[in-house]
């Protein structure tokens, strides 16, 4: 047994890790390569480099409208998840009542249902209620998927919050709402950030749940890309993908820089999945 950095098993493991890293990054990196390719079909290596596909991308008004829809729904679903989720988490954590554990399970149940099954169910439901084809049905469908994440993460955050601080605020004259705003919220801000982040990503990237609820009016970006890919595979999608990857990278950088890693670890490990 040879400890230290010369250990062959350790070296093998690290080499393996590098391979896995390459595997994880490959499609993303090469999408970027193709985005700047000059060819009008997908060939490697690219015959030349140009930005023409980005230019063509910006002419696609339908894709742009879809992006706006996705953004609106994602923001709405995130805000709703945070507000409703925080309230529900407060109710679950701060009070004891009959059926509390059952309610907790009930809130997490939507996570088990396969998204495509839920999607088709929502389609039937929406048609039944004559609400098919609007942003509202999309919003509600996404909310059902993001809310359980928010509740799960926020209950973990609240459990680890210091209750004596809330008592101190009350003792100093703060009515319950003020206490919540000035003392509880600052304590769970990492949980709120992580929930909001997850909720946004999940809603923004939702395909299976949106797939059955869209028509041309309320198209979302991932579904629009999906349809585009079925019809043609020109590098316009690569250009769009490159843009989205760029946004994701910026998002990751911001997340890494702003979040306190110890807080994050606590919230993530307590939040379960």
């Amino acid at each position, binding site marked *: 047994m040879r400890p230290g950095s010369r250990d062959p098993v350790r070296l093998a493991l690290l080499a393996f890790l590098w391979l896995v890293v390459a595997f994880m990054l490959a499609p993303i990196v090469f999408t970027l390569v193709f985005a700047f390719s000059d060819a009008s079909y997908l060939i490697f290596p690219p015959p030349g480099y140009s930005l023409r596909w980005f230019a063509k991308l910006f002419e696609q008004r339908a894709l742009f409208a879809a992006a706006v829809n996705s953004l609106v729904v994602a923001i709405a679903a995130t805000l709703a998840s945070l507000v409703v989720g925080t309230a529900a988490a407060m109710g679950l954590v701060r009070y004891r009542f009959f059926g509390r554990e059952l309610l907790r399970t009930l809130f997490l149940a939507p996570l088990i249902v396969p998204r495509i099954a839920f999607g088709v169910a929502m389609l039937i439901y929406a048609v039944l209620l004559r609400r098919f084809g609007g942003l509202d049905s999309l919003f509600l469908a996404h909310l059902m998927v993001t809310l359980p994440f928010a509740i799960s993460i926020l209950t973990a955050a609240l459990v680890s919050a*210091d209750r*004596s*601080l809330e*008592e*101190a*605020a*009350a*003792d*100093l*004259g*703060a*009515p*319950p709402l*003020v*206490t919540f705003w000035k*003392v509880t919220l*600052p*304590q769970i801000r990492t949980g709120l950030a992580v929930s909001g982040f997850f909720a946004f990503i999940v809603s923004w990237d939702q395909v299976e749940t949106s797939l059955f609820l869209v028509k041309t009016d309320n198209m979302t970006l991932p579904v629009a890309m999906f349809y585009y890919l079925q019809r043609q595979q020109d590098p316009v999608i690569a250009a769009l993908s490159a843009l989205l990857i760029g946004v994701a990278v910026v998002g990751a950088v911001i997340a890494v820089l702003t979040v306190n890693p110890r807080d994050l670890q606590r919230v993530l490990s307590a939040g379960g999945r």
Partner: protein
Amino acid sequence: MDVDVELREVSKHFGTVVAVDRVSLAIRRGEFFSLLGPSGCGKTTTLRMIGGLEFPTAGEILLRGAVVTDLPAYRRATNMVFQHLALFPHLTVFENIAFGLRLRREAPDAIARKVDQVLQLVDLPGYGGREIHQLSGGQKQRVAIARALVNEPAVLLLDEPLGSLDLKLRLAMQTELKALQHRVGTTFIYVTHDQGEALTMSDRIAVMNLGRVEQVATSQEIYARPQTRFVAGFIGEANFLDGRVVHAGPDGVLVAVDGLRVRAETAPAPAGAAVTLSVRPEHVKLGAAADAAANRWTGRVEEVTFMGAVVRARVVLDGGVRLVAELHNDAAAGLTPGAAVAVGWAAGHSVVLAG
């Protein structure tokens, strides 16, 4: 004398657990009043009910004559210093202290002036800009007190505030707190399990056990005249002698204990009643010092322990009764295990306990 806080038959049940059992107290304005007892005796729950952080299952709580039983904490004229301080970590010292003032929408210059004043009071001048994590344990303690006091509450509640400090700091803070209370004049209600702390600082003490108040009296009286066996054992040390009243008269009581006849001071115990006597070790005299005692017997020294300024001796009387005596080390000369010795104490030093 004004009564600031009154509790009338206050009880608190948590499910089937009775945490506080029909407690009645009247705390006077300007008093330093302590709730003393072991953990689980209900003292902290009682304090929290006075503060509005818990609500009684039965009984009434009055603050300066007004019924406040159901009033939540943020509407009561009390402020609390919490056991673990509960300082807001995301706010500066100034913002912590100003918290209550801001909620009452006081003018910014009034707030600044009051915060400054209270910082001077707790001997932390100029500390307003500091972050909480930059402070030492004692400094945090003082900020917590300042944050409560700056709101000029009718009553200040303190929940074992010195528990987390080391011994030397704790003793220093006890003196400071007492001086502070004198300066400010606010009624202090102080919870502690440390009898030495309670005796040092309090004007009056309520000794609690298993949710009930066993005795309320001044420090001296609690020490000299404990009313129950629990109080006698919890405060200081005691020798307990169980016996039966033989004769009760205007000049005192005679109690038969294991074949001995012990004189005690007058007590409302009829002849024939079973009573317990309590005698403090420092009142048990040995040798020549026991000559003039009303209670005097012979016995034998069993064990002598040298403890620095005092010496403790365990003696057994000829009838078999065992006692612990505590003497000054210069009075302990000649005490060796096995030596015969006279043992005695004054009649007034046998305290008749209620049970």
